[in-house]
Each structure stands twice: as C-alpha cells, then as structure tokens.
C-alpha cells in the first residue's frame, strides 16, 4: 500500500539526480563543441575497438569472480560455525577499503603475473567482491529460517536447500551487488595504470595528458555512457519485479548455523587464499618497503614524515567532508526508493547510477569546466572536489542506506506521523536514529573511496594541497618505494578502521540488536 509521493521529497531527489547527471551533460556538450569531425577523428586515432573489447572483457571476467567470492564468503560467515568468523568478516571487507591503486602497485611490484589483462581482472575481482559480500550478508541475515527448515523437511539436502531456496532469495541482493561491480569496472582507472592495462578509461587519461584534447576525450566517453546504460537496463530486466534487500521485519530470529566439521579445512583454505591475494600482498609489500628503507638508511623515509601529517589531515578532511555530503544527498534518494513505488521512483533511483557513466577523471574535468564557465567562485575550491567525490560515490551510499532502511518498518513512521510529528521531524526523530548504523556505513564507504581516489584529486585538488594518495603516487611512480611507504601505511591504517566500521554497521538497524552469534 503506497501513499502519494511527497512533493518535497520528489523535488529534493530531482535536484540530487540533476547533480549526478551534470558531469554527463557537460561532457556531451564538450564533445559536440569540438565538432563531429574532431570527435570521429579522436575515435579513429585510438584503437577504439580494442579498448572496447578490453573494457567489456574485464567486466565480464571480473564480475562472476566477485559473485562467487562474495556469496561464498557471506554464506560461510553468516550461516556456518566457522572458527574466527567475526575476524574473517572484517578482513573480507578490507579489500574494498584499501585504495585500489595501493593494491595494484603492490601486485605490480610482485611480478609480471599480475600485469595486463589477468591483473586487471584480478584487481577488480579481488577488491570489489566485498560489495557483493556485504549486500548478500545482509540478505542472508534477513532470510526466514522457517523456509530453509521447511525445505529440509521436504527432503532437500543442505546443498539442495542452498541452491533451490537460499540462492533464489539472494538474487536481488546479488544482482544489485554485481551491477555496482560491473559499473565500477567499466570506469576503473587508477588500478589499471600501475598494471599497464589499457581500457577506455586509461586511454581517455592518455588523451588528457598528451594533448588535453577535451573534445576527443569526451567523445571517447560516449562509449562508457552507452555501456553504463546497457548495464542498467540489463540489470533491471534480470531483476524484474523482485525487491531489493527488503527482508523480514521486527525482531530478528536466530538463524541456524551449519556445522562444517572437516569441511572447515577447505573453506578456511579458500578464505585465507582470497585474503592472501587481496590483503596480504599490499600489507606484505608495505613491510618490505619499510625494511628496505631501513636498510637504505632512514633519511628518505624520515624526511617524508614532515609531509605525512598534512597529507593525512587533507585526506581525512576531504574524505569526511565528501562522506557527509554524500550521506546528505543519498538519504532522500534511498528513502524514496525504499518507501515508494512507481515509474518516477525507478527512474530517479536508477539515474543515480549514471555517476558511473563517466570515468572519474572525465567527470572531474567536466565539473572543472562547468565551474570555470558558470560558477567561477567554485573553480579551484576545495568544495568542488568534495562535491565531485560525493557525486561519484553516491550510488554506494544509496545502496548502503537501502540495506538498512529496507528493514525499518514503515508503520513506525506512520505512528510518528499520527503522534503529530511532521515529515522532517519523523525523519530526524525516528528514521534517522534507527538507520544510524546504515548512515554510518554509507559514510564510511564514501570515505574509503574518497581516500582511494586519485583521478578526481588529480584534476580538482586545490593547487597547494596534497593527499596521502597523491604523495604515494608521486613516490611510487618514481620508484621511491621507501619514501612512499609511510603514506601507504597511513592509507592501510585508515582502511582497517573503515573495514571494521563497515562490517559492524552495514545493513544494521539500531534497537533491533545483533543476532546472537552462537
């Protein structure tokens, strides 16, 4: 039973979507300004077909890896009596919060195994599976145990229960997670640079660096816009009418956890293997860099420590600011998507994903172009970078909030309204407090991505500032690994905190309490 969509909510959501679509529109205008001939010549100059094939192949190969690791990991952590599963849960989320460029530099330094296509697939597969993991874990916690018990009583084995009862119910969460992964893979750039793998994004990057042919780069972006739209419509068709993480309401029932017995050994081996690739290599690299730096004399590392504090300060500042802004922008969209139905709702909610239509770099250039032409006061300001990062990572914030908001019973908001609380007052006194873990998770997610953001910072960072990421990149690209080490250490430390917060807050509702983990 859906009531009318409040006009104010609708208006706010339209504004948010307008912000998201702004870079796309600016880019299209830029591309057309260069004239059709300039655009076509840019497309001809680059081996467009190879790039297209590269991009699509990476996406197609990496997405299933995320699906398998994400679903398997979530199942083992949530539904088995696996030892140390709490620790595993945090560690399994960590790859998402470790900046992708740190991971890819670490892999590149391990050897050529991880370079090229294989490395590109691996970096997407092993750093983005936690999105699937988090969403599926929430869905698993919300499943009605009675369904599995009934299936068992009808004679299904535990394998049969998983494939015929559990997996179909996870479909909306799984598809939602895979969509995010695929969209992100399309426009990933930072991770691919170190791995020397060419996709549209990296070619666009080259276009900007070489001749700063804005229109040529913009023309190339048409491809990513089209691919993004194809994915969005494809997922919508696959998903059909299934609801997202709309799970059981009220008090959480205790779920049955399966005893793994001897099967624990291969399962532990699988999880440790995943973590070895995704977490141990970056951490191991860091340790190696530190030991090398002490061997080569402390001077290089020590001289850089003067930059460490300002860089950390700037990174955390930008991260927190864009996280807060993203939470503010995402909340109305998430509420609209969870509480209302209809074509307008679907269109607005989907439109937020258009922030994936452009590689971050292109979006940043578009915003800079927009500011320099129409809002001079914004040009070169810190706020523009904050805005760009909030917009670019908005879909993650929306998804994180939906996972929590979907579990808050609408009747609680109805009760508040009947007690005289207005719409805004209900949001502040009931919805937001209950959704606090979800808001924190959304903010932490955006914070982590902002920390791992290089492309946008490259274009929009105010001139006199530097971040942990830019410092790391400066030194590591000039093979001054010892000098890069302290910045990598700070990034990994922040990533660990983010991973812990993310795991403990994602998809939780305040007051319902965690299920007793026995």
């Amino acid at each position: 039973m859906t009531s009318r969509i409040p006009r104010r909510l609708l208006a706010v959501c339209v504004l948010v979507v307008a912000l998201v679509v702004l870079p796309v529109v600016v880019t299209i205008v830029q591309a057309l300004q260069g004239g059709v001939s300039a655009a076509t010549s840019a497309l001809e100059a680059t081996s467009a077909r190879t790039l297209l094939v590269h991009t699509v192949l990476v996406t197609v190969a990496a997405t299933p890896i995320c699906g398998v690791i994400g679903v398997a990991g979530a199942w083992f952590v949530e539904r088995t009596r696996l030892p140390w599963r709490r620790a595993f849960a945090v560690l399994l989320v960590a790859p998402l919060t470790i900046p992708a460029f740190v991971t890819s530099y670490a892999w590149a330094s391990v050897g050529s195994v991880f370079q090229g296509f294989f490395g590109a697939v691996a970096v997407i597969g092993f750093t983005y599976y936690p999105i699937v993991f988090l969403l599926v874990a929430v869905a698993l916690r919300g499943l009605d145990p009675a369904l599995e018990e009934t299936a068992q009583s009808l004679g299904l084995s535990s394998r049969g229960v998983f494939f015929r009862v559990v997996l179909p119910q996870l479909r909306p969460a799984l598809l939602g997670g895979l969509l995010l992964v695929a969209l992100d893979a399309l426009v990933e750039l930072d991770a691919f640079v170190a791995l020397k793998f060419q996709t549209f994004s990296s070619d666009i990057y080259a276009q900007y660096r070489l001749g700063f042919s804005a229109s040529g780069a913009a023309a190339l972006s048409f491809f990513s816009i089209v691919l993004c739209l194809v994915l969005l419509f494809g997922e919508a068709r696959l998903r059909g009418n299934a609801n997202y993480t709309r799970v059981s309401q009220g008090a959480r029932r205790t779920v049955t956890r399966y005893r793994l017995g001897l099967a624990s050994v291969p399962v532990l081996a699988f999880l440790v293997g995943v973590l070895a690739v995704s977490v141990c290599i970056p951490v191991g690299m860091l340790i190696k860099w530190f030991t090398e730096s002490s061997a080569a004399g402390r001077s290089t590392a020590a001289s850089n420590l003067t930059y460490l504090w300002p860089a950390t300060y700037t990174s955390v500042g930008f991260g927190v600011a864009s996280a807060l802004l993203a939470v503010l922008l995402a909340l109305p969209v998430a509420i609209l998507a969870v509480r209302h139905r209809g074509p307008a709702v679907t269109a607005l909610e989907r439109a937020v994903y258009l922030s994936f239509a452009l590689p971050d770099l292109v979006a940043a250039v578009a915003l800079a172009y927009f500011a320099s032409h129409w809002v001079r006061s914004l040009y070169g300001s810190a706020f523009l970078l904050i805005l760009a990062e909030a917009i670019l990572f908005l879909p993650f914030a929306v998804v994180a909030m939906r996972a929590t908001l979907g579990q808050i019973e609408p009747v609680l908001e109805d009760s508040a309204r009947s007690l005289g609380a207005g719409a805004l007052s209900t949001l502040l006194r009931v919805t937001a407090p209950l959704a606090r873990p979800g808001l924190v998770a959304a903010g932490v997610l955006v914070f982590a991505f902002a920390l791992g953001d290089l492309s946008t910072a490259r274009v929009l960072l105010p001139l006199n500032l530097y971040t942990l990421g830019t410092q790391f990149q400066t030194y590591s690209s000039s093979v001054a690994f010892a000098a890069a080490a302290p910045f990598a250490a700070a990034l990994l430390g922040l990533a660990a905190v983010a991973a812990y917060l993310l795991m403990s807050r994602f998809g939780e509702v305040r007051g319902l309490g965690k299920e007793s983990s026995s």
Partner: protein
Amino acid sequence: MSDLRCEGVAKSYGGRVVLSGVDLAVPEGTLTAILGASGSGKTTLLRIVIGFLPLDHGRVAVGGTVLADAGRVHIAPDKRLIGYVAQEGALFPHLTVAENVAFGLPRAQRRAGARVLEMLDLVGLDRGYARGRPHELSGGEQRRVALARALAPGPRVVLLDEPFSGLDAALRAETREAVQQALAGEDTTAVLVTHDQAEALSMGREVAVLRGGRLVQTAEPAVLYRDPVDLELARFVGEAVVVPGYSRDGVVDCELGTSLPVRGRLLQGSVQVLIRPEQIRLSQVDGVAAEVVGSSYRGADKMLRLVLRDPAGTRISARTFDDDLPANGETVRVEVAGSVAVFSEEER
C-alpha cells in the same frame, strides 16, 4: 474528544474498488468496532481516516472539522490529532518506554515526565517499566504502551488496528480489559478495526460491518447478532442454523417447530429462518427428533452436530452447557427457545 464522521468515502486502486459509499458516525466518547474479513477494505478506511491515504470521494470530519474532502481538503496526518495504535504496537525500538509514551508531547512536557506516569497508570502498567526498552516487554505490555503513547497527546479520536492480534487467549482478555478501561477513563472516541467477531461484539458500543468495501450494517452488538440485515452477515457474526419455513402473521413454521415468534422484519410466505445454536435446546419429552452425528467440546459450552429425521436430512447445530453429552448415533429431541429472524427465500 469529538465525534468522527465519514460521509460517502470511496477509494479505488488501479480500477479496483476498495471502498465505496462508506458512511460512518462514531458518537463522542464511544467505541465503534469495524468488523470485516481480510480484504474487506477496513485497513484502507483506517488509513484514510488517519490521513495516510487520500480519498477519491466523500469526506472525513472530526468534531465538525473537515480533515479530508475529496479533491479539496487533505490535512496531513501529523496535523489531525488522531491517535493510532498499530498492529503489534509498533513501538520505537531505539527509545525507552517513557520516551515512546512522551513522543507525541510538546518538548517541555516530554522532559517533565508527569504525563508519562499518568498514562502508564491509565493503561495499568507498573511505573517501573518507564526506563525499560520495548523488546523487554511482553506482547500485551507492548500493546498497552502503544495505547498510552497514542493517548498521551490527548487525541480527538483513537484508531486501533487489530490491537490484540498475536496475543494468546488469556493475555488477550486481560489486555482487552485494560484497553477498554483506559479508553473509558479518558472518554475517548475510538475506532477498533478487527476481523474477530467476538472482539468486535464485546468491545464496540456499535459494530460496523464492512464487506467488499461497503458498510452493510452499523448497529449495537445485540441488534447485529439478533437482527442482521442478511444471512451472509448472520453467518459472519456468529454460528447460524438456517432452515426453510413458512411465515404468516408474526409467526413461522419450520422443521424445528411451529408458530415460532418472529422478531424484526415480518415477511409473508416461504422464508428462511435464522436460529442461533444456543436457541436450540435439548428436551426430554417434546420437540423434534434428531440424530447426533458429532460434538465438539469447547470448555464452558459444547456444540452438538445434529441431523433431522426429515427427507432432506437437514443439518443443525445446538449449543449446550450440559456436562454429559449424548453419544454419536443417539437420538435426541430438540426445540427452539425465543424468537427467530426470517429472510426472503432468494438469499443464500
């Protein structure tokens, strides 16, 4: 407190009519129960009155103030001063019991806490619960807190949506009593929505029966039970024995007896006769012979299933309070006590 009036309320979803022409008047300080099966539109009506749904036609007014008038007026739910007790209470899990009860009070009163204690007393809850959390309470206690929360701001009308669902029988009776007392204590105008006929008949000053989106009858419980407007309603509000008969001059003849007095509408000719099972008494000497084909023990009362010795083999039920029930296959004699209601033959 004020009276509640719904006039010609109608609502459709995508071409499906959910409510049509609903006229309801709840006098000030009384409780009206809206009784309906699932899908009858009772929840929709309730949501329209609170203001969660706009109506297509008609209007809703409380104490003379129009709250909703199709296409013209739609006061927001938070401005209507209508209390709402949702199914299973819907207490805010992040707040304590006291904070829940104080939720609808003005800021200054929220702090003071006097009203909260007053409300806990009203619904018969120990003041010690005030600092507890909703999940520490039993189902019945949660419903009481929900009522206290709804009553605290002094609403003009309180709507209760199946407030006793999911409670076991003993707790249900106890909670029902506490709610009744609290509502009476505040002289509250209230509407209770339920699918349980016993609950509706026992709690409502008046009972309004909603069927297929229409109010078929609004009457005091006794009138509804004894003189329902049609046979479907008769069966809905309680168990019914319906047999064919021939009516003339205020009496009716049927298989179960001759010259039975008719109450309510008087029809002439062939009719259907409504008899409640408790009117059918076992008799040692007089009456119609019937064979016992089954019996169910229900505690205080027992229900006997009987087949009459007539060519049609009419099946009837009799409610009895006797402790020794006749065995299956035994023949008993039955007669009808009191007056009966008659309906035209076309009704089913």
